[in-house]
Structure formats: C-alpha cells, structure tokens
C-alpha cells in the first residue's frame, strides 16, 4: 500500500516559537521526495509532523492540514499512535533496540503491541522484511544475535526492515545516511529505489548528490535568519531544482553560493 500526502497551510510550533511557517506541498504516492536546505531550516521538524512525532517533544504542536489520501492526520479525534503505524520513520542514527535480537527487532512493531502472530507468520515477516531491506543474506544465520552487534550500515538497514515490518503506507527518513560510510550509503540509496515501488518515501538529506540520485521531486527549505521561521521556498522535479530553479535562493544553495 502507498498513499499520497497533501499538506495545506501547516504551521509548526515549539511552544510559542513558530518553527516552520505555512507549508503547502503535495507528495505523490510511490515516489521519493527529498527535503534539502541549511541546518535549522525546519525540514526535519516538518518531516516529523508527517507522522505526528513532532508533538512527542513537550510543548510542540502543529496547526494546519496533513492529508493522507484525503484523510486529515490532524483531524479531531485522530489517534497519533494510529498515524504512526501508517507512516513509518527511520532516524538519523541507527537505533535498534539493544535488549532485542535481530529477529525481535524486526518483529518489534508487532510484539511491542502484543499482537498475536503465529511462528510461521513471524518467520515469513522477518524474512520478507529483511529481504526488503537487503539485509537477509548478511544476517540470516544469526537472527538470534543482538542487533547492536551489527555494523552501523547494517543497523540502519535493520531499522528500515523494522519499519517495513509494520507495513506502513509512507516511510519517512531523517538523514538516514549521515552516520554511515559511502558503501553503506549506496546500499541504503539502492534500497530507497526499491522501497519506492511499495511506499511513498520522504527523505531529509544534507547531501545534494544524494537528493539528485534518489529523489523524483525535491523541496528546498530555507530560513531568513535566527529566530525566524523556516519556509518551503521551492518544490519541483529534482532535475528542475538542481538545474533550473525558479528562485534565486534555491540556485544559490544548490550551487554552493549559500550565505
């Protein structure tokens, strides 16, 4: 399953502080969208509003509409926990659960929610998720070993497998490769290409080559100064953003003349 995301007039706050102002964006299903922009411009903050992880921080909230196939995530009575099982998230630093084996990490979304699952279904889910994350061949002989024993790149792919096992509609990735070496980065990027066939993928990255390699569309976020809110400056096809942007700020940023 895969769903499209339409954001209307979204304002994101930390307490009284307006962090991201008035975002309107339409993200197609089965596509990869990259968010780029300088540090502190609110792209990660905005990403976290797409699965209501933003409000985990005390005092943080968002106003506006985020529609997942027409259903408002911020509508009255919507349970953020339900939203998060539909919109998965991969974090900047690999964070497998240290008390669990590789197998249990993949099954975490099922087991932590105390859902009943038969042994054979669990085995099938572990295998398909790990295969989907291109990790199966590396770990199939040591599924009962702790996840923390893997390398950084393997841990990150384990986290992606863990996210896929919940069968979300959308996968959000917050700088998933910034803690990884180039080889692991390529492994993750290849994976993102494959994920696109099943999921809507949104990725925050600081690496502009990466955005060009993986993304169908790219959104450029910017901030005018400290204390000012971040804004979505331009959103277009990746090729347009990097070769023929309509905004001066975008051109400056992608060509390295930022600041």
């Amino acid at each position, binding site marked *: 399953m895969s769903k499209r995301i339409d954001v209307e007039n979204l304002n994101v706050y930390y307490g009284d502080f307006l962090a991201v102002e008035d975002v309107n964006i339409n993200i197609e299903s089965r596509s990869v969208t990259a968010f780029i922009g300088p540090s502190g411009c609110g792209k990660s903050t905005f990403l976290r509003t797409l*699965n209501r992880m933003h409000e985990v921080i005390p005092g943080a909230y968002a106003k506006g509409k985020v529609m997942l196939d027409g259903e408002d995530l911020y509508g009255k009575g919507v349970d953020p926990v339900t939203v998060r099982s539909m919109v998965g998230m991969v974090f900047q630093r690999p964070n497998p659960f240290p008390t669990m084996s590789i197998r249990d990490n993949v099954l975490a979304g099922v087991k932590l929610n*105390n859902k009943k699952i038969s042994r054979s279904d669990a085995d099938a889910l572990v295998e398909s998720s790990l295969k989907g994350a291109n990790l199966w061949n590396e770990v199939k002989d*040591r599924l009962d070993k*702790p996840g*923390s024993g893997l390398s950084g790149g393997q841990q990150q792919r384990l986290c992606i497998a863990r996210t896929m096992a*919940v069968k979300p509609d959308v996968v959000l990735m917050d700088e998933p490769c910034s803690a990884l070496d180039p080889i692991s980065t390529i492994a993750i990027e290849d994976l993102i290409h494959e994920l696109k066939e099943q999921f809507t993928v949104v990725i925050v990255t600081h690496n502009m080559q990466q955005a060009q390699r993986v993304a169908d569309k790219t959104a450029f976020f910017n901030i005018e100064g400290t204390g000012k809110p971040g804004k979505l400056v331009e959103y277009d096809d990746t090729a347009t953003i990097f070769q023929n942007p309509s905004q001066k700020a975008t051109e400056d940023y992608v060509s390295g003349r930022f600041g």
Partner: protein
Amino acid sequence: MSISTQSKSSSPVKNSLTSGQRPKWLVPAVMVAAVVVGAALSALIGFGIATWAIFSAVIFLIAAPIAVTTIEGSRKGSDAALTYVVYAAFILAIIPLISVIWTVLVRGVPTISIDFLTTTMGGITGTVDQAAANAGDRPPGGALQAILGTVAITFWATLFSVPIGLLTAIYLVEYSNDNWLGKVITFLVDVMTGVPSIVAGLFASALFGLMLGPNTRMGIIGAVALTVLMIPTVVKATEEMLKIVPNELREASYALGVRKWRTILKVVIPTSISGIASGVTLAIARVIGETAPLLVTVGYFERVNLNVFNDWMATLPTFIYQQLMRPVAPTAPDPSTDRAWGAALILIVFVMVLNLIARLIAKAFAPKTGR
C-alpha cells in the same frame, strides 16, 4: 639492509628521548629511606606502629616529590606529589573499612556455628550464660529468630517500597515534563533522603498507634518505617537509570505505532532493568542494618516470630543492641558480647551478598552484545 645495520650500530647509543629521566630505583629507595627514618623518629618519642606509619608517610610525601623535581623538573615533580597524595588518601580511606571487616571477622567467626544459626535465645537465662562463661564454652543460644526477623521485615519493606519507588520514578522521568507536581515530588524525595531513621520509626509508630492504639509493636510497622527510608533511594536510583535510556529508543518505538505505556514497559524498563535491579538491591542493603526505627516499632523477641502482623520480633540489629546493652547475665557479659559480634558478622555477610547479587543482576540483565 640499511635498517639492520643501523639497528646493530645504534644499540649501544643512548636514546636521547629517555635522557633526564629518574632511575627506576629512585622512588622505592626514597620509600625505604622514609620507612627507616620514620622508625627512628618514632623511636625518639616512644616507638609505636601508628606514629611510625605517620612519620614514614609524611617523610615520603615530602621527600619523593623533591627527589623527582631535582632530576626531572617541577612539572614531573608536582605530578609525582599529587599522585602520591592521591594514593595516601586512598589508603587512609580504606583503613577503617578493612579494620571494621577484620575486627568483625576476628571476633565474630568463633561464635558462628550451626547451633548459632539454627537456635534462638529461648531458654537462655543468666544462669546458663554464667555457666558457659565459667566453663569457657562457646556462647549458648543463637540468632535464628533475628535472622528470620530481618529477612521477613526487609522482605515486606522491599515489597512496599519497590512498586512505589519505581512508579514514582517512571512518573518523574516519563510523564511529569518538569511540571510543578514533578518538582514538588523531586523536592520531597530529596528531603526524604535526609530524614533521620529514628524519625521514620517514630512516624510509623505514631501512624499505627493512631490506627491500632498506642504502643502497638509488630513487624509490619518496622517494615513501613524501613519503606519510608527505602523509597527515596529506590526513586533516585531508578530515576537516574531511566534518564540514561536514550530518547532515540523511545522515538523508535513510538514511530512503530507503539503506545507510550507499552514503550515504557517493553523498551525503556527492559533497557534499564539491570541498573534498576542493582539500585534496588543496594537500597535493601542500606536499610537492612537499620536499628533505631526497628527498636521503636518492632521491639525485640527471644524466639522466632514470623508473623509480621502480630507481636514483637527480633532483627539482627536489635539483637546486637540487646546483647550489648542488656547482657543476659549482667555479671558475665562475655557470651552476650560474643553473640553480638556473631550477629554483626552475619549482618555484614548479608550486605556483602546483597552487593554481589546486585552485580550479578546488573550483569545478567545488561543489554546483550556480541555478533
């Protein structure tokens, strides 16, 4: 080839990088000299082990840095001075500890026997003690009732304080968000940490006095008093452990669509359980030796009473107190004193075993590593 010829020719050449260093024998030599001079100085004022040790230490602490300074300069000299001061402070700190353990072992071990561990003080009168003291026998009677009483009361105190302390810590770390209630609880827990144990005893005694009439004595009141003392320790230990669980793990769990209480129960607590368990064990070790609150709430009893809801009980600390302050045979207090030391040894063994258990628990529950 050139390397091999060089290494051959360079072996007799002195390495310039090692010049200007003190010879290896310098500090040991200063130490020997300090011990000798210390002995001589001590002999001048009437020889004693204590003065000998003090004089030797002071001389060494002054002479060794001076010797190092003259050879290696003031930077190495002050390094040496501080190093030796740190060692001296460490030795000073460890002396009382070893001395206590040594004294308790020396005086307690002769009393310990199967009899001492399996009998009570029931039927041990002044005449029996007097006879044993005259015959030079092992002291009659035993501490079974005190051992069982300590175990029972500590068990109930743990049963009360661990859930309360654990849940308080979970509220503080996971739910309070530093709101006013959280701040008030933190402040009160800090205040409770400093409550003198006798005050906790008075509190429990007065509380049950109101409910069951004055001068009620039973094990459960002592357990409540110990609970008052244990809760802040458990809260603090658990709080610290929960705080060091990385926030990323909580977020990872939330992002999988897991509810907060399940995240706490299945991710946060399992990740920190080793620290929590060892903190709880140390809290038990902390209250197991409390005397004052038990004297005013539980009293003392010569025979086994395992019912914490009825009547007086014996515990190891009150047993020691009774044997020392009210010897069974006032004219022959030696058997009573011996029994006190025996009970003290059992108490110390209890605490040591609890500490070991804490370490084992920490190891057993620690997040697994390995490939």
